[in-house]
Every structure is written in C-alpha cells, then in structure tokens.
C-alpha cells in the first residue's frame, strides 16, 4: 500500500530530484487535453490566413497580394476605414474617459452606472442599435427627425426633411462612437480605480487647476489603461461589420470589413484570395496598434498602482453636478433608450412611418415576422442552440484552463494559455476567414453547417470567457484550497466545495456574456453563415437586403430581448450567489 514507484537510486543527483515528484492528477490530464484542443482550434485558422496569402490551391503564389492591389478603389476603402475608426475612436476616447472620470472621481457619480455601462453592448447588440438609429434618423422617415420637425414646426420653422441624415459620414461616425464608448469607459474606470487619487490631490495642492490636473496628472498616470482602450477599439473598430453594413452601405461609404464579407459571401464565385489579402490589411492595422501599445507599457513611466480602497474626497462640481449627471444619463439615452424605442415603435406599428398611429400599436407584426416566418424562427432556434452550447463549452473549457494555469507553474501550460488567447489580438473577420480556409473545404467540409459557426464563435469569444474564468479562479486564494486539504478533503472534494462555489458567480457572468456575444454576432456570421445554417445575425442581413423595416425591427427587438434577459438574469444570479460578500470587509487572503 505504501510504495508505488521503485525507490529512486541514491545516486549523486541532488537538484533535479524535485521534478520527478509532481503528481499528475486526472484533473490535470483532462484539463491539459482540453487546453491543447482549444489552443489548436484558436491557432490553426489564423495560420491558414497567413498561409493563404502566399499559397493558393497548393502552389506558392503572390496572387492574393496582386489581387489586393488590383482592387480599383483600394485607396478609398482603406481611407474610409481609417477615417471611421480613427475619428470615432478619438471621440469615444474623449467621451468615455470623461464619463469615467465624472463617475469615478467627482460627486456627479450615479450609483449603478459603473456596473451597467459595460453591459450596453450586451443589452442592445450593435446590429440592433444600428437598425434603431436608421429608423430614428433616416432623413425622411426617421422618427426622431419627424419629431424634431414637428417641434420646430410649432415655432414656425417648416422643414421638408432632415434635419439629420443617418446615411452620412457624421451618422456613421456617431453610431461607431456610441459602441466604442463602453470599452473606453470600462478600461479607464479600472485605471482610475487602481491609480492613487492622492496624485491628483497633490497636484491641486501644488497649485494646479482642476483642468491642468486632469491634463497633466490624472490621465497621463493611467496611460496603460488608455492605451488598452485604444487597442481594444482598434480591434473592434477595424472588423466592425454591423454598423457599416447597415449605415455605411446606405451612405455609399465602403469600408474594409464590408468589402471582405461581400467578396466571400455575396460574390459568386467567392473571391477568397482577395478577401484574405484585404484581411491582411486589417491585420497590419491591428499589429501596428499592438506595437504602439506594448511600447507604451514598456516605457514604464506611468503611475505606480497603490492598493485599492484609498480614502479620497470626490471632487465637488457644485453647480455643474447636475449638468454632468445629465451628460452621463444622456449617453445611456442615446446608446440604448432611443434606438430601443425606435425599434419597438416600428415593430409594434407594423410598418415604418414617421406618423405613428398610437392606437394601432400591437404585437401582431412582431408575431407575424418572427414567429410565423419559418426562416426567421429557424434562425432564432439555431442562434439559441449555438449560443447555449457554445457558451457552455467555452465556459467549462475556460474554467478548466484557468484552474490549470493557477495551479501549475509549467511553462507548457502558459504557452497553451497564450495560444487560446491569441484570437483576441486578431480581428474577428480574419479569424472567420481562417475558419473558411481551415474547415470549410476538405477534409472537414464544415462549410455551411452550424458546427463551423459554433467552432468559430468558441474560438473568437473564448478569450473573453478565459478572462472571466481567470479572474474567478485567481480570486480563490491558494490557502483556501490548502486549508480544505489540511482538513481532510481530497482534490475532488476541494474542487466541489471550495473552488467551484467561489468561482460560480464569475463563471455564470462569463457564460451570459459569451451567450450574448454569440447570439448577437454579425462579423463572423456574415462570413460563415448562409441559408443552410441560418442564424439571427444572418437573417437580419437578409431582411435588411430584401425585407421590410418592420420585420427588421421585430427581429432586432427579439434579439435584444433575448440577450438582455439572459444577461440580466445572470447578473441577478451572480449577485445572489455572491451574497456572502455583502459586507465591504472581504476576508484577507495572503499570497
């Protein structure tokens, strides 16, 4: 019963004896296999994209690169993309940082904003938001435009159309900006929270005005967070498809992401090689941003982060307090409330008209266009199926990998972890193209199936799930597990009684986000989905091409309802699960 392995020869090998001794548990074995599988799933398609640039049909060629330069409007395409991403990025940076600062460091803070702001893209998916804004601000029939015309008509100014037109550069940039702001807000809030507020107080004492302090101390001190926000916006912005396909197409503004999808999905035969070449341009943009961000981090001239929870006084804004609050609320109004109202009105009205018949609003049109349309119903069912399966697989894998990383100091494990997170630095579009190249044809023949969608979604969104699982796992101090062992519980029981219950709130939240992302995805969907594997995102595109706006609004309403419900429920559940954290005094955890 005592010895399993033969005694080690007592040779003169003092140091390496340690390595022999690590026990391999069933848990570690399973987790390693899972991690390897997902690492391959994440890296292989990306490799295929890189390869696809130089190899077509098995023979080396520079064809794709030639094709790219042969695209007649290449310059316009790149320029348009840059303008949209950079201008909206700068605006979002200003708005998002401003909101974060108001909410974190001044008395204009509104309870609940901090938690709900990052959820906006999940509550109202960008595709629904874009459709909503089209319904509101279309030059003639836009509901908001009509309302404004009615108001100014009351004071004697008659307008035939307008005053706003969503199908324009300002319209496009406006909606881009709305959906970039939450990312900036999230990261800058994190930065402000961990940076020492006494830096600001010291600056004010040294005679600097509030504005000078902001400009010279507060924001420079959190440069890494701002750099992270810029990078995140770049990733999202260059491959954002939902907003430009709805608004850009109407305005005649072509961007890279829309063209790539066109070449792959709406051209016959598909011009895959050119699409791969164009994706490579996206890749270069992201690479350049990544390079600058890492330079920024390495320079190290940012604030040393103090421990959390320093005491500081929120800056009093005096008579500016309520205007500041209105600005915060105004953002939520523009990003969620108004487009949602637009969608609901058109959906309930049955057709898109600026003259709403308030008495005639009903759910009939919603029922007809979603629940009585076979195609739409199939799309919703497929999306739900893929969302539930994908989020579940993704989160279980992420949790296993996170625990493996926490418990192992093995270098191979770190490499696997890095590989799994690799897709987060590539644009979704590039990965989707990679999936076509990798799995669309022989030997897998997964093109046009729901399986390829499922795999691509998991690969694309697993990094986000991983981040959620990592933070959930790292919150469980190793001493908590050790204490359980000392008190007689083995590995399995420790996992069940200590790790799992402590991780569940984080895992559930992560699951809900993955679900919302997968159900609301449009970028990868546009590349990979079709009539044979219909999902909500693709159905929205179809309806937009040749359906009615009421149908479009109705499906957007259903999509929004599903994601908002799931995300909302998961939040309630996480709160309830985390009830033992109720008091602000958290148990000490060393090491």
């Amino acid at each position, binding site marked *: 019963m005592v*010895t399993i392995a033969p005694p080690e020869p007592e040779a003169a090998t003092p140091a390496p004896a340690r390595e022999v001794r690590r*026990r391999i548990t069933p848990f570690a074995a399973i987790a390693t296999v899972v991690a390897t599988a997902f690492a391959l799933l994440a890296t292989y398609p990306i490799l295929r994209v890189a390869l696809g640039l130089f190899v077509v049909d098995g023979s080396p060629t520079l064809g794709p690169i030639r094709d790219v330069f042969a695209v007649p409007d290449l310059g316009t395409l790149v320029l348009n993309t840059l303008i949209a991403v950079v201008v909206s990025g700068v605006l979002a940076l200003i708005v998002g940082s401003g909101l974060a600062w108001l909410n974190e460091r001044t008395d204009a803070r509104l309870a609940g904003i901090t938690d709900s702001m990052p959820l906006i893209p999940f509550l109202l998916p960008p595709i629904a938001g874009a459709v909503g804004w089209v319904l509101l601000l279309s030059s003639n029939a836009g509901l908001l435009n009509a309302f404004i015309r009615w108001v100014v008509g009351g004071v004697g100014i008659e307008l035939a159309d307008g005053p706003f037109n969503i199908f324009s550069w300002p319209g496009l940039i406006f909606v881009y900006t709305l959906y970039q702001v939450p990312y900036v807000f999230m990261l800058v809030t994190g930065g402000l929270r961990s940076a020492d507020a006494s830096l600001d107080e010291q600056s004010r004492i040294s005679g600097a005005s509030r504005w000078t302090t902001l400009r010279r101390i507060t924001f420079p001190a959190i440069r890494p967070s701002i750099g992270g926000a810029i990078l995140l916006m770049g990733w999202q912005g260059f491959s954002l498809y939902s907003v430009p396909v709805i608004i850009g197409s109407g305005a005649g503004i072509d961007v890279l992401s829309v063209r790539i999808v066109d070449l792959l999905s709406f051209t016959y035969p598909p011009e895959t090689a050119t699409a791969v070449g164009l994706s490579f341009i996206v890749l270069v943009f992201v690479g350049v941003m990544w390079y600058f961000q890492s330079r920024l981090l390495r320079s190290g001239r940012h604030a040393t982060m103090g421990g959390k929870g320093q005491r500081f006084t929120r800056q009093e804004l005096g008579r500016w307090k309520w205007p500041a609050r209105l600005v915060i609320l105004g953002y939520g109004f523009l990003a969620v409330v108004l487009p949602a109202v637009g969608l609901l009105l058109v959906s309930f009205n049955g057709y898109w008209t600026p003259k709403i018949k308030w008495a005639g609003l009903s759910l009939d049109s919603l029922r007809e266009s979603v629940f009585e349309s076979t195609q739409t119903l199939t799309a919703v069912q497929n999306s739900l199926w893929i969302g539930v399966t994908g989020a579940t697989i993704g989160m279980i894998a992420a949790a296993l990998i996170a625990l493996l990383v926490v418990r192992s100091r093995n270098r191979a494990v770190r490499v696997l972890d890095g590989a799994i997170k690799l897709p987060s630095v590539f644009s979704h579009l590039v990965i989707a193209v990679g999936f076509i190249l990798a799995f669309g044809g022989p030997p897998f023949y997964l093109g046009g199936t729901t399986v390829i969608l499922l795999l691509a979604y998991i690969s694309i969104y697993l990094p986000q799930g991983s981040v959620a699982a990592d933070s959930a796992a790292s919150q469980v101090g190793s001493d908590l597990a050790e*204490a359980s062992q000392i008190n007689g519980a083995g590995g399995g029981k420790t996992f069940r009684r200590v790790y799992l219950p402590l991780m569940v709130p984080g895992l559930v939240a992560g699951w809900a986000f993955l679900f919302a992302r997968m159900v609301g995805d449009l970028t990868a969907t546009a590349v990979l989905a079709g009539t044979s594997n219909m999902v909500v995102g693709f159905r929205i595109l179809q309806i937009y091409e040749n359906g009615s706006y009421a149908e479009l609004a109705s499906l957007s309403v259903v999509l929004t309802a599903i994601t908002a419900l799931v995300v909302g429920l998961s939040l309630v559940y996480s709160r309830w699960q985390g009830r033992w954290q109720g*008091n602000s005094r958290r148990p*000490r955890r060393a090491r």
Partner: protein
Amino acid sequence: MVAPAYVGTPTAATADPPTAGPIVRVRDVRKRFRRADGTDTNAVDDVSFDVARGEFLVLLGPSGCGKTTLLRMIAGLETPDAGSVEIDGVPVFDHARRLLVPPEKRRISMIFQSYALWPHMTVNQNVAYPLENRAEKLSRAEIASRVQASLDLVHIGDLGRQYPGQMSGGQQQRVALARALVAGTDLVLFDEPLSNVDAKVREQLRAELVSMQRELGFAAVYVTHDQHEAMGLAHRIAVMGEGRFVQLGSPRDIYHEANSRYVANFVGTSNELPGTVVAIDASGQATVETDIGPIHGSVGSPQIAVGDRVIALFRPERVRAVPRTGPPANGTASSAGFGGTVNAALFFGPHTEYHVQCGAHLLRVWSNTRTELPEGASVDITVDEADVRILRP
C-alpha cells in the same frame, strides 16, 4: 517531466496510535528552491527534530529563514527534496521509500496566516468541515454540538450563522482556531496566525491560546518572527537561520545561553564587546581582554581557544550602573567593571534605558530602580560572570 510518484496511505492509520514516542519526527529534511536568477537556494537544509506529545514548539526566525517552508512540509503542502517525516508514529514522507501521504490523510490541523476561512460558508459550515471529512461518520446532531462546543471554547458561540466577511479580524482568527480544534487532532500547525490582528487583540489571543493548549494538550508547531510571541508561547524554541536550526532549547536557554551572536541578538537586546581570549579554565569560563578592560564569561560557541578574537555579550538588564564615588572601578574575580558616562536616559515605564559611554563603546543598561541617573553622570557599571557569553564574532 511529470511522473506518478508518491502515492499512499499511512501504514498504521488504522492501528491504535502509539502512546509513547514523539508526535512529529523530522529527519534530514531538505527543500531547495530555484531563484529567479537560476541559482539554487536551500530553503530548508538538513533539519532534524522531534516534537513531543503536548509540546508547544515555536519555529522562530526572520523572514526567508525557511520556517514556513518547514511547517508546510510537515503539513504536506510542500514536498521535501530529501529526508523523512513521521506524524504520530506513521511515516507520511520518506524520500528513500518514495512515500508521500497527501495533506488530507495526515490528521492534523493548521491555522493559516490569512486564516483561509471559506468566504462562501457560514462560520458553522467552516467549523463543521473538518468533521465532515474525518473517517468516522458523525451524525448531524453530533457535528452541530461539537461545532457549538468549539465555538464556545473560543468565545464566539453566538456568531455561527455569520459569514466570515462580516466579522472583525479578531473574530475571524477565533473561527480559524475553532476550526483547527474542532476535530480534536493531536497536532495543530500555526503559520504566523497572530500577525494580522492589532496589538491588544494579539496579546489577548496569545494568552487564550496558551491556556487552551495547556488544557487540551494538543501538540503545536508554531511559526513566527516575533520573539515576544515565541517566548510567551513555547515550551521549546527553534531559532532558524538560512534553512537550519541554529539553536533549539527552552526560552530560558535560548535567551540566557545563546550559542551564537545571531541567536542572542534575535531573541533580545544585547551589549557586545569585542576582545581576545587570554585564558580558559576547565569548566569553560574564559577571560577576555577588551580595550576597556578584562571581562569574564562562559564560552558559548564551540572550539574557542586562547588567542581567538571573540565577542563578550551580555543583556542590558543584567548590568548594574551606580554613581561613581571613587576612582574608576576594576573588575573582580567574578564580575567585570567599567567606568563610563551616561549619555542619555530613556524612560520606558517598566525600566529606564541608560546609554553609557565606556571608552569607544556605547553600552545599554536597563535599570528598574526609582532613583534616576542624570545625563552626564559618571557611573561604574558591573556585570556578573554568569551573565556574560563568550561567542564567536
């Protein structure tokens, strides 16, 4: 790289525990860590010791001396690179036999520095946990009553339904104690458990811990870097340095008969006078010539011979200082005497500390008499031979 190695259960786990013999027996245990720069360092270097039943052993040393690593190796949370460990007569680790019993099979308790209370369980659930995992199945009612008894023992009997996050640091500490004691294990390991509570609470908990340990009779291995805590708790103290036991003995021995400057200075304040050995007698008493005169004392370090450079070391409270009336004092056969001047007098309450300048040396003298020596006064200071240790520099 990864190979199945030590798996096993205690050989005599089911047999009656032997009543004689130590509760812990550690032999030649070694643990090596690789530093970031690639060099190896011995965190614990060939350490051997026994802990008797009911004994309170304190591992004392500065941070990084290997005391926590040693404790965690007894617990099974770290695997030694060599040696063997027995708990209650049962081998739990033996490098030569490739035997390793995991922590959950060792039947011990441990209190972590962070307390390691599971935040998602109530106090009752936390304390019940060890009972649920023991081999013999207890009824629900039995568990509840033992949990309550344990909580009553540490004076938090009414907090059972609370979550740890809702309690103060001192209360959390008590929960950890209750959880460690509830299963009635014969061995409890403590990893600096009092370092996270404030001074008053610490003192109170220390006093309770002593009386509880003496009453319940469990053996304790207690890690700390605080010499006061060590003195107040221990039957024996092991002073550790660089992965080794530098000295193992009762608090009195360690304090009065230190075997090295390292130990003497770690467990208290001392005066040091460098000098040269001029005579050693058969009983180990040496005479040392210093630049302010001769001093007598007992040899503490091994292998000291006439002509060696040494340090004469004595405690400030063993020194007497009296106002000088005649010419500077000279030593007698059994005590050393030096003349000096009071540089500073610091009143601490229980005693007054005088800084006395004797030649080139500043000696500290603790006096608890009501009469005070004024600063600038000329004094004679004397120290008995029995209070001086002659040690290697």
